[in-house]
Each structure stands twice: as C-alpha cells, then as structure tokens.
C-alpha cells in the first residue's frame, strides 16, 4: 500500500496545473507589442549569428586597411549593386550593418551579464542583510548614480585603449573577439550597474519580509540557501525584465561612445560606421541613416520585449 502510494507520487502527473512561466507565456502571447518585440529580437539574433554568410560583401577590416574595399566604389548612393549605398571608405552599408549585428549583440549581452552580476551581488547583500552593510553599499551606489557616468566612460575608454596590443583581437574558444570593443564593454558595465542594483535591493527587501522566508529561517536554512534557492527565483521575473532593458541601453550607449570617436576603430560596429561618415554626411546621408535605423530597430525590439515581459511577469502592474 505504502509503496503504491510512493509509486503514484513518483509517476509524472498527466494534468499538472500550469506553472508560473506557462501562465506568463500565455499572458505574453496576448500582448501584441511584446510579440513584435520578440520577433524583432529573434530576427536580430538570427542576423547576428548568420549575417556574415548572407552579407553581399566581406567584413570591413578584410586583411587590413590596404585591401581595396568592394571594387573601390566610394560614396555611391543606394543602387542595385549596393542596396544601401557605400560610405566614405567604400564599405557597402548593407554588409556593414549585417556584419555589425554580431557586435551589437556582443555588446548588449556581455554588458548586461556583467551589469546584472554586479547588481545582483550588491542588491542581494544590501537587501538581505540590511543594517550597516545596506547603508554602506547604498551610499556607494548613490555615488555612482550621481557620477557623470558618460564622462567617466569616455576617460576610462580613452586611457585603457592606450595600452599596447589594442586594436587586435584575442582568441576565445576559436572565436576572434575584438580587444578594443571588449574594453569598451567592460567600462560600460562598470558604470551601468547602480540603477539595477537599487532595483534588486528593493525586491530583496520586499521578498525578505514574506512569510515563507520567515518559515525557511525558522527551519534553520542557511543565508546562502535562502538567497539562492528562495528569494532569487522569486525575483527572477523582475531580473529578466531589467536585463532585457539593459541590453537595449547598452547597445545605445556603445553606439554613442563609438560615435564620439572612442570606440574600437578596428571593429565596424554600427556606431563606428556613423562616426566614420559624420564629417561627410552632407553627401553620404545614407551612411548615417541606415546604420541608425538598424540601432533603432534593435533597441526598440529589446525595449518592446522588456515591456511585454514586464506586463506578463508582473501582472500587478497591469489591470
């Protein structure tokens, strides 16, 4: 009898009640804006992964500066050969955008990963332990918040890229990763975490007071267990939303830094294309218009996705 009962509870039930995520997905599906965002993001990721294969012309630093680009057609208006025209260097804009997609994603994802790691660490410790730890960490966060962060990003990037060996790429698991761009990413992440850390701290403060945490504590669970097994999963939905918005913001910021001339000159990010053609934009307006549209669409997609996720995962905020 007993063994049978055990058997029953071990066999997977046929009709399980919908999980939190299934409910959220159902809610998300009804949100048109969110779906549009998801489609854009999936499209961008696809282009990021495979853009190199269907770009009409090879990538920009193709064996160094001396290689004549794409038949040497400089500043051609959009035509049947160059669908979006060519820029002052003779780069085909369409190819530039397609090749640049992977860099945009690289920036967005890695900046967000580092940002969230710092933010979760700071937010969790401050929110969970409270008292002077919280006080200290929040003071530091505040200082970072009033920091003129863009100015510091520019100084840091400029100074760090002075070092030797920059301008090449390093090899990680067989993939060439541009060094200069990685430095930019690192700097962006360092100045990007405070807002998110504050949000996560707030969530921790909220969940910490809930009854189940109290119950878990009285059962003698360790702090580590409570933080990682109980509180974090509960605020995961907020973290996902913020991460999506952070990706969008990071892409925007990198474009700005590159546009001001602080980016990695050897990596043709979208911002870099805009910067290269800035002084000639009276002529090559197409070289300014289209990469910007690429940035706009990508960032818009991630923002839409973030808003949609927020509606689906935190239904309290919606009716």
């Amino acid at each position, binding site marked *: 009898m007993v063994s049978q009962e055990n058997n029953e509870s071990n066999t997977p039930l046929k009709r399980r009640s919908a999980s939190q995520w299934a409910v959220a997905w159902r809610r998300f599906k009804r949100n048109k804006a969110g779906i549009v965002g998801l489609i854009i993001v999936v499209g961008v990721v696809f282009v990021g992964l495979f853009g190199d294969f269907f770009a009409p012309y090879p990538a920009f630093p193709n064996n160094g500066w001396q290689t004549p680009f794409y038949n040497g057609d400089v500043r051609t208006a959009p035509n049947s050969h160059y669908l979006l025209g060519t820029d002052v260097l003779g780069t085909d804009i369409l190819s530039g955008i397609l090749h640049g997609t992977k860099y945009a994603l690289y920036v967005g994802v890695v900046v967000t990963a580092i940002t969230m790691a710092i933010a979760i660490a700071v937010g969790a410790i401050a929110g969970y332990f409270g008292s002077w730890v919280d006080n200290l960490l929040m003071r530091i966060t505040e200082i970072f918040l009033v920091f003129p962060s863009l100015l510091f990003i520019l100084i840091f990037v400029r100074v760090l890229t002075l070092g030797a060996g920059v301008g090449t790429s390093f090899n990680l698991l067989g993939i060439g990763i541009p060094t200069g761009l990685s430095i930019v990413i690192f700097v962006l992440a360092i100045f990007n975490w405070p807002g998110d850390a504050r949000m996560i701290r707030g969530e921790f403060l909220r969940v910490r007071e809930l009854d189940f945490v109290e119950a878990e504590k009285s059962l003698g669970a360790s702090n580590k267990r409570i933080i990682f097994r109980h509180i974090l999963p509960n605020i995961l939905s907020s973290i996902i939303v913020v991460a999506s918005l952070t990706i969008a913001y990071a892409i925007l910021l990198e474009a700005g830094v590159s*546009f001001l001339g602080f980016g990695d000159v050897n990596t043709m990010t979208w911002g870099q294309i805009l910067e290269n053609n800035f002084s000639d934009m009276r002529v090559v307006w197409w070289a300014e218009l289209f990469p910007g549209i690429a940035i*706009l669409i990508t960032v818009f997609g991630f923002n839409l996705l973030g808003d949609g996720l927020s509606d689906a995962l935190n239904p309290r905020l919606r009716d």
Partner: protein
Amino acid sequence: MLNKLKSIAKNGVKRLKLIARSAMFRYIVRRLLYMIPLAIGISIIAFITMYAAGDPISLIRAGKPNVNQATIDGLKAYYGLDKPVPVQYLNWLANILQLNFGRSLYGGQSVNTLIGPEILPTIELQIISLLIAFAISIPIAVHSARKPYSKQDLTVTSFSLFGVSMPTFWFGLILIIIFSFTLGWFPSAGAKGAAGFLWWGNPVLDVIAHFVLPVVVLVYVSLAQNIRLIRANMLEILRSDYILAARASGISERKVVYGYALRNAITPAVTFLALALGGMLAGAPMTEYVFSWPGLGRQYVSSTLSLDFPTIMAITMLITVMTLVANLIMDILYVYIDPRVRIR
C-alpha cells in the same frame, strides 16, 4: 527713529537665528557638507585614472619622436608633472580652491579662459530643454494614463518608447540632414551665425534658429523618459483606494485627476528630474558634438581625445558640481512638493 531701527535690527537677528535653527537650514548645510567629500572622491578617481595611464607629455609625444629630451623635461617642469602623482593632486586641489584650473597641455593656455565661455551655452541648452520637456510631458502623460490602452494612449506610449530607443545623436543627425541640408530652414552647427551672415536676418532670431534643432533633440529624448515615468505612476495611483474614495464622494473628475492623482504622481518625477539633469549634463558631449555646440561637452570630447588632462579634469569637476547642486535643489523642492517628506 533710533528705537525703530534697533527693533528692526533685533527682528532681523531674531529671524536669522530662526532660519539658522530651522530644520531646513540644517538639512541644507548637512547636504552641502556631504557634497564636499563626494566631489573630492570623484576628483581623486578621475585624477588617478588619467595619471595612471602615464604622464601626458610622454603620451602626447609618442607620435612625435623628434622632440628632444630637454624640451620634454622643461615641459614637465612647467606643468609640474615631474612631481609624484599625490603631490600633483594636492597642487591641483590647492589651485582649484582658488578657482584656477591650470593650463591646457596644448599651447599652455589657461584652462579658465579656454572653458570659461563654454559654461553658459551648455547650461542654457540643458535648462531650456529640460523645462520644455517637463512642461509638455505632464499633460501628455496624464491624458494618456486616464484612458489606458486606448488608441491615444497607444500612440503616446509608442512615441515615447521610440524616443527611448533612439540614439540621441542619431536623431540630431537626421534632423540636420532633413531640416538643415535639404530644406535649409535651420543652421546645422554652432550657437551663433557668423558676423556677415545671420539666420533669419536678425541677431535675436539668429540665436533662436541655432537653438531649435538641439533643443528639439534633447526635449524629445527627455520627454520620452518623462512620459513613461509619469504615466506609469499615474496608472498605479488612479487605481488606488483613495482615488476611488475621492470619486465616490462626488468630486469632479478634473479635480480627482489634477488635484489628487497628479500631485502624487509627480513627486517621483521630480527626483527623476534631478537625475535627468545630471544625465543631460553628462550626456552633453553627444548633442554638442553633433551640433558643434560651443559648450563644455564638445570641448570634453576633443580634450579627452587629445589627452589634455587639465581640461578634462576641469570639465569633469564642473559637471559633477552642477549635477550635485541640481540634486540638492531637487531634494529641497521635494520637501515642498511632497508634504509626507519630513526632513530630519
């Protein structure tokens, strides 16, 4: 007569004492005292970052191998770069307390004369844009939140989401291409026309013409952020119990929305205003670079690219202090706007 004067003086002293004893005054003093270590901390971080990269003369010299060692030593002595970094920092701090920002590494011009004329254009541009953005965003956000998910609301939300998703500088580029290069309505660069050529034929209109495009860019960006924030607050508040109670007691809808809900929705927006001003000041390089605006931001970009350390330090500190002061002003305003806030 004398008695009257005496009593006025007495009253004056009394009032001053009252002010000095008031919680507000002490709060402001405390905040000012808190700002000092903050500003010093930020300056130390900036200083260390730059000078850790090496001394600027050698860095600049790297591309010019023909300069002889004697000249370099002379330059280093001239700029005080031959001393250890902590001593350099203290020298810099002592100078800055006398409002002397040192000398530019390019041409040895005093940084004060270099950036002095650039402070006002930056502040003008930022303040004008911020005020316009704030003024427009409130009615739009309120209107949008009153009928959530209606057609109008969708228009407003997508408009603001668009604004948040757009690179600021790129919006500027597109405006220049359309309104300046193609249509020729507005100037594409600078804050003033040349002596012989004024836009719209009048010195005042000329200045306005130069303001239009940069202001439009800045307004659109902060408008978008503002609308998103205030709308979200309004939505939450309009659903709260006390609004229901106000409605139930028959208060006009107008008064409920503008008198009760808006007041509560706007307080977080004021905090945001301070952060936004800080962000705009720090973000000044973007817009000013695009429009060749003769301000601190554009100067900052060129100084940082050319590693002109004293100028970088000066602009960083100016913008930091402006941000801190803006934060303080907003915190004081907050006390008046939100009666729930008590200063301790």
